[in-house]
């Protein structure tokens, strides 16, 4: 448990202090979303129509981009080998790192999204659902990403690999997440989509740490 907390703490510290952490992800998210009105033009109806999709898609990309460093830094500087030789179960190590990743990126993304929604003329009714859907969906991204990052560890072209691996698996999350917001926007019930998201999150929580831990053991061989 001490080790779990130590890893969590250090990763959060690094995310706030260093390159690929919170600020990069938030910066990317804000800028990526801001780029759209420039490219598409300012019409409010068009922007509002695509707002749920754009916000979710960019949140997905932002999370994806920060994932390739999830284990990479520890792997390169030799920390990972030491961490894996601890009495801590590798599954818990994965969980600690995924949790830190979510706290450092998913949560800020969920918090920032409603604000960006305003810029895309997303109606106020949809904001709580946007926030809720990201709150449920981003942990799945962190968990799936942990599996991908562990598999791609030490690989050449880790970033593409990760994207190519995680995206097909994350597609349902995106579809239901954006779907929930769109329902709310058009006055339909968002609850079913949100429930599905919650279910997916629970499944990911059960399966992903085990898979990622297996991949990690492979990687330090």
């Amino acid at each position: 448990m001490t080790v779990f907390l130590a890893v969590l703490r250090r990763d959060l510290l690094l995310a706030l202090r260093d390159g690929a952490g919170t600020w990069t992800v938030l910066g990317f998210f804000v800028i990526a979303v801001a780029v759209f009105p420039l490219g598409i033009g300012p019409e409010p109806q068009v922007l509002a129509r695509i707002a749920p999709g754009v916000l979710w898609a960019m949140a997905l990309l932002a999370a994806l981009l920060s994932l390739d460093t999830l284990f990479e830094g520890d792997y390169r500087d030799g920390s990972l080998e030491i961490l894996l030789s601890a009495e801590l179960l590798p599954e818990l190590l994965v969980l600690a790192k995924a949790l830190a990743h979510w706290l450092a990126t998913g949560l800020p993304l969920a918090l920032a999204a409603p604000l960006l929604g305003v810029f895309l003329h997303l109606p106020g009714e949809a904001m709580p659902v946007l926030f809720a859907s990201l709150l449920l969906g981003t942990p799945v991204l962190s968990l799936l990403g942990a599996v991908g990052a562990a598999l791609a560890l030490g690989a050449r072209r880790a970033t593409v690999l990760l994207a190519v691996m995680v995206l097909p698996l994350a597609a349902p999350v995106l579809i239901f997440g954006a779907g929930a917001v769109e329902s709310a926007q058009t006055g339909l019930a968002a609850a079913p989509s949100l429930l599905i998201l919650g279910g997916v999150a629970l499944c990911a929580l059960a399966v992903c740490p085990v898979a990622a831990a297996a991949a990690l053991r492979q990687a330090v061989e």
Partner: protein
Amino acid sequence: MAAMPGTPFALPLPTQAFPLILRDVACARGEARVFGGLDLAVEAGGLWLVRGANGAGKTTLLRLLAGLLKPAGGAALWGDGRAPRTVPERAVLVGHQEALKPALSVAENLGFWARFHGVTENPWPHASDPFGVWALADVPVRALSAGQKRRVSLTRLAFARAPLWLLDEPTTALDAAGQRIVWELVALHRRRGGAAVVTTHAKGTVDGANELVLGEAR
């Protein structure tokens, strides 16, 4: 150096699992075989100095002992019949790589490793500071000189409770004083029943050390 009473060095070590025995072990990196037919017994209180040309397989051997590589042939077993792989927390490896985060300060880095090794209170000033890096506590690791980094990295040994130390060219980048401290620490560790396997390119030897020279072919 100062190893004060009340520091980890004064605590008893779990040494009952010794010896660690390698029998006819072969090792491969990638597709290529690095060495084979290696026999080795690491006893409590023992010290092995591993020598050999560049690329002979010294680092590979240490990774094997740490359980990070599986032997490609032969068997590596602790006294209680377990493979290095299945019993972590038995060995601590200080390798070519520093395992330090450049963005964090010396204190933050060491604090993490201390907590990792189960030292829960603030490691300073309770724990010993054999390499005198306390003075650099607030400096981010990225602003350290090569030798200072190595000192910080080696300080991890002061927190570890593992009975087997695996040191890969620990004296690299250290000045004369630093090198002396390394050997003194190893001696201290052996006195409390620990063992060490140390690779080195230096010529001198150490009291009661066994020598292993890897692969004469280069």
